[in-house]
């Protein structure tokens, strides 16, 4: 049986995607598509993704790299005549794709996003140096050295301007109540996974 234009995927999105219940409210005006600074680089603008969700194109949506291009600039959100929280829906769709393992391989933003989270989740605060290095080395050691060399001048400048501390590599900032913090995040994740039906 065809899943075309049945609501199964829409229902899944409503259940499992942040602010997913808004998807049905889109009226296909396209203002979001035209407002996105990275629009030119997307396969599918938000409004089209919403239509695809309504048309039941689950795989096409979840394997798309479109939502990973969101810079969280909120242009779409403030212009949407239906007040859809598009930025959040994009994040939510990306999250769903990631959780289901459907997001495109080597999606750099996805890698950065999870690195960022893991970085902050460890100590409660972001360690900018580790994050940057992590990003440079995401594609392996060799590439990482190259990336880091390419950005060397920037890094040195930052150090000079006292805005980057090489010592951050060995510890650095963090909160005191790490255990409470970790427990809190664990609990939040638990609740969310239950609600969104993630294993």
């Amino acid at each position, binding site marked *: 049986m065809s899943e*075309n*234009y049945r609501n199964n995927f829409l229902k899944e999105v409503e259940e499992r995607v942040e602010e997913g219940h808004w998807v049905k409210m889109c009226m*296909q005006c396209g203002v979001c598509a035209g407002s996105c600074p990275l629009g030119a680089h997307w396969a599918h603008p938000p409004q089209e993704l919403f239509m695809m969700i309504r048309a039941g194109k689950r795989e096409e949506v979840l394997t798309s790299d479109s939502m990973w291009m969101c810079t969280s600039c909120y242009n779409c959100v403030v212009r949407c005549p239906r007040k859809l929280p598009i930025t959040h829906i994009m994040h939510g769709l990306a999250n769903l794709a990631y959780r289901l393992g459907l997001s495109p391989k080597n999606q750099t933003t996805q890698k950065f996003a999870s690195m960022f989270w893991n970085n902050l989740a460890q100590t409660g605060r972001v360690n900018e140096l580790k994050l940057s290095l992590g990003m440079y080395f995401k594609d392996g050691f060799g590439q990482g050295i190259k990336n880091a060399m390419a950005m060397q001048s920037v890094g040195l400048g930052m150090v000079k301007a006292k805005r980057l501390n090489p010592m951050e590599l060995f510890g650095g900032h963090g909160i005191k109540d790490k255990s409470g913090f970790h427990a809190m995040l664990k609990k939040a994740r638990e609740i969310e996974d239950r609600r969104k039906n993630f294993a």
Partner: protein
Amino acid sequence: MADMKVAAYICQGCGLGERLDTAALASVAKKEGKAALIKEHEFLCNADGIKMIRDDIANEAVTHVMIGACSRRAKTEAFGFTDVCVSRANLREGVIWSQPETEEARETTQEMAEDYIRMGCAEVKKMTLPEGDPAAVTERTLLVVGGGVSGMTAALEASKAGYKVVLVEKSGALGGWAAKLHKRTPGKSPYKDPQNTPVAEMAAAIEADANIKVYLNASTSKTSGAPGRFEIEISTESGSTTIEKVGAIVQATGFELYDANKLPELGYGKSANVVDQAGLEALAKAANGSPIKRPSDGGEVKTVVFVQCAGQRDDSGKHLPYCSGSCCLTSVKQAMYFKEANPDIDTVVIYTDLRMPGNGEDFYRSGQEKGVIFTKGKVSGVEAAGNQCKVSFQDLILNDQVAIDNADLVVLATGQVPNSGVDIDTKLKAEIAAAAGDNSLMEAYTASQQEGAVQPISMLNLTYRQGPDVPQLKYGFTDSHFICFPYETRRTGIYSAGPVRRPMDMVQAMEDATGAAMKAIQAIENAGLGRAAHPRSGDLSFPKVRLEGCTQCKRCTVECPFGAIDEDEKRFPLFNQARCRRCGTCMGACPVRVISFENYSIDTVGSQLKAVDVPDEFSEKPRILILACENDAYPALDMAAMNRNVYSAFVRVIPVRCLGSVNTIWINDALSSGYDGVMMMGCKHGDDYQCHFVKGSELANIRMSKIGDTLKNMSLEEERVSTFEVAITDIERVPQLINDYAALIQKIGMSPMKGF
């Protein structure tokens, strides 16, 4: 009426005193205009000037007043004496504001002014005060034809205003289309959910209303008379007939859905699971809140597809070309029926443009909130496959040819087709052409009647000369052509309401019906006072006809835009005053000039144009007569003058009620009096006509196309008579037209007819 005493008043204000020799004008009024009393005044429209005129009327027995001042459109109230005949010589806008303020122009400007004084005097002498109709009667009862929501609304609203109503409904119960609905779309905030229809409530109110008499299973088998005195023969299914006397009629005969059998490509007739909106309402009514079952097998409905614009907005000529304006709302409402019963049912609305204006947007949002899916697409076909249907369409957003192959139910949003009865215009047009000597249309019409084609059933069975129903505007709808005047049907005292007038939803139909009831009540009141209805509202004049001169040519009876004139047993025209709108088309049509109004006649215009002083052939001062529609061309001339857009001093302008009232005798008279040219300025005609009397300018155009023979007989160039379509905004174009025409006349030379 007492003996005629003409008084001429010449204003010196607004620069008239400086630009013109008013003493000379007074002398023209005296010597040529034969006015008994002549007064100049430095500021005629002020309280003192008005009092002077009033005193003369009271003390000097003045019966006819010629005012030489500004345009008749200015200071209308100040000079609006109702107890005497008044003519206005337009010296301000018509002369000093439209002529250059130069020494060289002084002579021609003065000549122009003197002519207008002559014309004003000549005109007023031919006028008599309209008497109205002393026998005017009126029946303070409305007939409402059609017992749907529109008809019921008209009846109830009229009753609330204190009028009696006779309501005729063809079926056995009130309610019409609305009675077939499970629910209606909301008509008030918050525009979220389907509502109960008002049918039961309204029907009960009608039943309880002593002012409203209802005939069920009945039709109007004969409608004769005129506003104020219609006689209605009501026939019931049982065969009985009753006569009701009413003053005005509201026609609320509603619509039928477009026949979905004409849409086999959308699966109608091929699967029981393809229904139209009425079919879906029937299913919903039967289900009454419980889940709607699949018609073919009573199975569970999991997927419903709504196909918008089915057989509508069609440019192939096969189906309805128009949009019915209400189907989008209806489909959203119907999708909600399913969502209310079970939110898991998939409802997809396939549309090209969703048309839900106003706070219909809230209803759209509400549909989306309830999970109705909207897809911009074009449906190419619906195929039945067992108990399901496959709906194939182009998804216009995803740019994809796709199909929904598991639809349990497909709802086709077909449009509204009005129940407007017989299209009388085809025959009428043929008759007009035949009267003008062209029989081809009549032959075609006769042929069409003989082919045994199914003829529509008349709604009103009017005994009118021009046919049994209200003329239709387009696609069978009986709407007005006028944007500013939606209730101007071409049958005075008969007003359309609801979807028979125009495709519409229930909210609009109720509003429309209330307005129609208002107009019907107004028609009743006006008929009682012998007054014209819009656009010459309040006019008490009325065509007077000298039947002894009539040749029974029928031109007046077929050309009257309002069907006001019937034919009596002896085939003489029978004027129905209360139907008449005082446009003068009959006067213009009459080849033997036996039709005139008291204050607007063959003579009032004829004497004006003859009063003009036509210089001889060698003067190099041609004379051009302009007959200008008083509603558009004349104001355009006034406003051109306000802008000081100057034009030729050789024109003399006479405002006419409508170009349709222009009788060719005026043209003949002008030419034989030595005018060098005649310009006729009327409104745009054709499909988007702007003539306030519907076809006056078009008729004038037809008549003038035949004036060529006359010109030939007089050995005159055909350019000497020209018609122009002029709009009220043509404040630069009109002076240009005049100047171009004056140049043309100069080129072809002066008329050889001068001095005869």
